[in-house]
């Protein structure tokens, strides 16, 4: 057993037991040393593990504080990311980066399983939570399923809500894959991250109850801001 890991977990338990919320202060290094009867250096490396995990942050000469919680992505239900983000903060912004109508070419056949020439919309949106850009979503939607999608305000509501309420399509089935990749150059500046950092790449399809593809999507997400729950 690695002592740093054990201690890091025990500190996690303290945060849970004391119900410390975002921005609240952890016990000091000195207090933690006394609780666990270990050296300052040991406590520091355990705290460092939690910091790397994004659970806590430090303020120099002040102490350790609880970080923003991760956005929970529920892998058991088809939920809109908009709703998941709003459950975390009231300060959620969706920015429409681009809206295009194209015809399916060779590049998309494999992932969309649609014939060449099928018209689709490509909606690229940036999600910002508490001024922190957390995710870029690119949705590919067959025009035939959602004609005139451009007449709706895609910065305001959830795309799934529009699909459900306006087009009366029930999303039933979803197949998503999560990978960790180097983000390409068009994505990095949007998320304000350094080049050659790895990020989460979630991609997959959502179908209606007749197994028709309604949306294929690609999402690039900051690793330390999300968790998947199933």
């Amino acid at each position, binding site marked *: *057993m*690695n002592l*740093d*890991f*054990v201690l890091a*977990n*025990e500190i*996690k*338990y303290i945060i*849970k*037991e004391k119900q410390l919320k975002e921005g609240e202060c952890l016990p000091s290094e000195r207090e933690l040393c006394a609780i666990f009867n270990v050296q300052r250096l040991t406590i520091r490396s355990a705290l460092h*593990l939690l910091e*790397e*995990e994004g659970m806590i942050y430090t303020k120099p000469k002040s102490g350790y504080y609880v970080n923003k919680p*991760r956005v929970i992505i529920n*892998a*058991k*239900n*088809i939920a809109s990311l908009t709703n998941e983000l709003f459950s975390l903060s009231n300060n959620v912004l969706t920015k429409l980066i681009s809206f295009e109508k194209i015809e399916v070419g060779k590049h998309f056949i494999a992932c969309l399983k649609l014939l060449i020439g099928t018209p689709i919309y490509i909606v690229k949106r940036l999600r910002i939570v508490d001024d922190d850009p957390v995710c870029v979503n690119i949705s590919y939607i067959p025009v035939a399923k959602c004609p005139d999608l451009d007449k709706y305000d895609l910065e305001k509501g959830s795309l799934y809500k529009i699909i459900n309420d306006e087009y009366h399509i029930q999303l*039933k*089935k*979803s*197949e*998503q*894959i*999560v*990978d*960790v990749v*180097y983000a*390409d*150059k068009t994505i990095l500046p949007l998320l304000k991250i350094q080049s*050659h950092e*790895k990020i*989460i790449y979630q991609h*997959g399809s959502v179908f209606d109850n007749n197994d028709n593809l309604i949306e294929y999507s690609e999402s690039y997400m900051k*690793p*330390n801001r*999300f*968790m*998947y*729950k*199933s």
Partner: protein
Amino acid sequence: MDYRMPLYLQLKEMIIQRIKDKEYLPGEKLPSERDMAGAYQINRMTVKNAINSLVDDGYLYKIKNKGTFVVKKDGDKKIYFGNKLSHSKFGLSAIFKEAGLCIENEVIDKGIISGKRFLEDKLDLEKDESIYYIHRLRSVEGNSVALEHTYVPLKFFPDIDNYNFSHVSLYDYMEIRNHLPSEINDIMTVQKVKHPIERIMNIDSDDFLFVYEFIGRDKQNTIVEYTTSYTRCDKASCAYKINPC
């Protein structure tokens, strides 16, 4: 493509062609950036741009302080798991078997601990109840795939230390003791590899891992397992399927 095209594109095209022609074989190390710049009298930045772009496109990968290599398509066969794991009562081994790969387990640490509040909370135990821990390194064809830290309440598995889980499946054993997890909840996060895991798994220190936390409950709805699993992102993808019947 003709000679008026930007040099980095030409270099890119040349490398792709050589990979296709099997001149550069999967897993092979590419000539250094310096050598390529010298060979074609081009700027090293141009070479760097071409290589980075091929890394982004998935043709090449880099290992820090070692060089740039051609992606191994077959050896890098990715295994898919995610909420599939929660439904498969046989765990990681079964998923790898499905993919035609044999998983080797190595127990790197085991023993009895108590007094760890975090684990007591996860396993829903009283204070100072004994917990048995097993840390296993799981590999395929000699390459580490996952590191699993499993914790079980000792009271349900009093003879657990008599078994060697390098060979015996933990879930088979838990089934014999009537405490096989029948429902598993998991949380997955993507985290940068932490010390000393990079050393144990022999991976690059800035690489990321899928970190799963499983809570397993048996048929009586008692928590019988808490596992943290660190899985390599380059060896596996995580798949989530929602398909209500």
